[in-house]
C-alpha cells in the first residue's frame, strides 16, 4: 500500500518535473534570445555590468543556496580576481583569456585559504570569519604595491581575444562577456546536478546525517567554497576587462553585502533567481547614480523587507505561488 502511494506520487513528481523542465527550457531559450538581441536596445556597458554581477551572484548562490553556507567575504574573490586579471593584462601583457584564467586561479587559491580557516566554524561564526578575513584582504589591497592603493589599476587594455578578436569593439566585448556568462551558468548547473552537488544539498539539509553517512563534510564544504570563489573570480576578472580598471570598491565588505542582497532578492537556492536579483540591484544603482540619494538606504530597506516578508526571493515566491506550481515548479 505504502509502496503504491509512493510510486504514484513519484510518478506524479516525474511528470511534474517534466513540465517544469519544459517550461524551464522555454524560459531559458527566451532569456538567451533576449540577451543576444539586447545590445540593440540597451547600453552595452550596462548589460555587461549586469552579466558580470549576475554571474557573481550565481557563484555566491552556489555556496549559500546549495550548500547552506553564508559567506560574508565574497568581495575578496570578485575584487581580488579583478586585480589579478588587470595586473596580468596590463603589466605582463597577457592576452585577455589568459588574464581571466589567472584571475580565476588566484580567486580559487584565495578561496582555498579562506575556506580552510572558515569551515572550522558553522553558521553565524562562518559568516563573521569570512567577513573578517575579507576585511584583512581589503587592508592588504590597500597597502600592497601592485594594486596601486586608492588609485586602483587604471586603463587596463582589453586586448585581442586569442590574439584574433578585437575586444575594444563593444559588440565583440559584449558577446564575449555573454559567452563567459553562459559557460559559467552551465558549469554551475552541471555542478549542482552532479553527485557532488547532491551531497552538498544533503549537507545543507542535515549536516550531522551527511557525516553519519560517511561523507567528509569539511572536504565537500571546502570544495564548494573553492568552486564558488573561482566562479566569482571569473565574474571579477571579466568585469576588470569590461570597465578597464580594478579598484578597492570591489574588495570592500559593502560589495560582499551587495551580492548577498542580489541572491536574497532573486531567490536563494534557485538557479536563475540571482540573475534577476542582480538585474534589479544593478538597475537601481544605475538609476540612483545620478541623484545624490545614497543607495545604501534603499539597499538596507530592501534587505529588511526581504528578510521579513519574502525570504524565498522573487523567483522563489513565484515557484511557490499557484501559477508557479501549476507550471510544475517545486520549491522548498
Amino acid at each position, binding site marked *: 500500500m505504502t509502496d503504491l502511494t509512493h510510486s504514484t506520487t513519484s510518478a506524479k513528481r516525474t511528470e511534474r518535473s517534466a513540465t517544469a523542465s519544459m517550461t524551464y527550457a522555454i524560459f531559458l531559450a527566451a532569456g538567451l534570445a533576449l540577451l543576444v538581441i539586447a545590445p540593440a536596445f540597451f547600453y552595452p556597458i550596462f548589460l555587461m555590468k549586469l552579466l558580470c554581477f549576475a554571474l557573481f551572484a550565481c557563484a555566491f548562490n552556489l555556496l549559500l543556496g546549495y550548500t547552506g553556507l*553564508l559567506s560574508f567575504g565574497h568581495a575578496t574573490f570578485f575584487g581580488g580576481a579583478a586585480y589579478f586579471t588587470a595586473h596580468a593584462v596590463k603589466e605582463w601583457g597577457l592576452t585577455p583569456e589568459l588574464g581571466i584564467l589567472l584571475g580565476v586561479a588566484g580567486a580559487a587559491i584565495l578561496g582555498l585559504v579562506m575556506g580552510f*580557516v*572558515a569551515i*572550522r*566554524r*558553522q*553558521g*553565524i*561564526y562562518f*559568516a*563573521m*570569519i569570512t*567577513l*573578517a*578575513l575579507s*576585511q*584583512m584582504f581589503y*587592508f*592588504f589591497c*590597500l*597597502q600592497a604595491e601592485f594594486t596601486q592603493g586608492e588609485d586602483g589599476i587604471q586603463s587596463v587594455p582589453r586586448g585581442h581575444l586569442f590574439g584574433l578578436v578585437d575586444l575594444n569593439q563593444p559588440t565583440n566585448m559584449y558577446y564575449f562577456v555573454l559567452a563567459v556568462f553562459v559557460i559559467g551558468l552551465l558549469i554551475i548547473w552541471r555542478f549542482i546536478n552532479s553527485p557532488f552537488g547532491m551531497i552538498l544539498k544533503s549537507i545543507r539539509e542535515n549536516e550531522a546525517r551527511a557525516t553519519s553517512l560517511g561523507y567528509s563534510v569539511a572536504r565537500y564544504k571546502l570544495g564548494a567554497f573553492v568552486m564558488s570563489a573561482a566562479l566569482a573570480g571569473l565574474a571579477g576578472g571579466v568585469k576588470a576587462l569590461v570597465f578597464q580598471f580594478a579598484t578597492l570598491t570591489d574588495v570592500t*565588505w559593502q560589495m560582499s*553585502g551587495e551580492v*548577498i542582497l542580489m541572491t*536574497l532578492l532573486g531567490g536563494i537556492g534557485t538557479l536563475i533567481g540571482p540573475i534577476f536579483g542582480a538585474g534589479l540591484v544593478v538597475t537601481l544603482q544605475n538609476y540612483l547614480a545620478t541623484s545624490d*540619494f*545614497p*543607495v*545604501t*538606504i*534603499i*539597499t*538596507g*530597506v*530592501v*534587505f*529588511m523587507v*526581504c*528578510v*521579513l516578508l519574502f*525570504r524565498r526571493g522573487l523567483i522563489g515566491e513565484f515557484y511557490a505561488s499557484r501559477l508557479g506550481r501549476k507550471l510544475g515548479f517545486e520549491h522548498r
Partner: protein
Amino acid sequence: MTMIFGIPLQAFLGQLLIGLINGSFYALLSLGLAVIFGLLRVINFAHGAQYMLGAFAAMLLLQYFGINYWFALILAPVIVGLFGALIERTLLSRLYKLDHLYGLLFTFGLALTIEGTFRYLYGAAGQPYSVPPALAGGTNLGFMFLPIYRGWVVVVSLAACIGTWLLIEKTKLGSYLRAATENPVLVQAFGVNVPMLLTLTYGIGAGLAAFAGVLAAPIYQVSPLMGSNIIIVVFAVVVVGGMGSIMGAILTGYMLGIAEGLTKVFYPEASNIVIFVIMAIVLLIRPAGLFGRDA
C-alpha cells in the same frame, strides 16, 4: 632615554595606551554582542551603527539642547536603547523561529539604512566633539604624558564591563537572563515574561554600544562611518573569544586592543590586520575560540 627592544619607552607606552583605549571599545562592543547573542541568538550587525548613533546623539544633544557630556553619557544610551527595544519588539522578534542567519541579514540591512541616512543628513566627513572641560588637559606621569580623557575612558569602560558582568552573574535579573539562555520555554513556564526579557536585553546591548559611542566621540571624530569600521574588528574579537562567556569577551577585547597597539610599535604595516591574523591562528589551533564552549 630608556629603550625597550630598541624602541623608545615613551613611544612604546604611548602605543600601549592607544591599544588599551581601542581595547576598551572592543571590550564594550563585544560584550554587548555577546549579551545579545547569548539570549537572542542574533548577531547584531547593527551594533556598529548603534555605537555611531550614541556618538551622534551626544553631539546633537549638545548642538540643539545644550546638554553637556555628562548628561549625554546617560541620555544617549537610553535613547538608543529605547530605539533598539522598539526595533526588537516590532521587527526583529519575528525572526527568532528562523535560521539565525536571517537575524544577521536583518540587522545588516538595519545598519546600512541607519548609516546611509546619517550620511545623507550629515555628510561622510567627521565632526569634532570637544572633551568636557573637567577632563581636559593631561598629567605627566613621569615616564609618559597621559591625556586625562584617555585615562578616564579606560577606567569608565572597565567599570561598565564589570558592572554588566555583575548584573548578569550576581543579580536576580541576571539569573533570569542566564536561565532563559539555557532554556527559554521552561523559564516562561515559571511565569517569567521571556519576550520582555529579550526586548530588555536587546535594549541594554544597544545602550552599551551607544555608551561606547559617547565615550568615543571626543577621541575619534563623530562620523556616520565610525561604526562600520569598528564592527568588523569586533566580530573578529568575538570569534577569538568565543561568545560563550561574558568575561571572555571582555578579556579578549582588551588583549586584542593591546596586541594591535604593540604591533603599531614594532611593525606598523601590519597593525590593521593583526587582529584578523590572530583570529585565523586561533581558529586553526582552537576552533571554539579561547573561552568558547563548542557551539
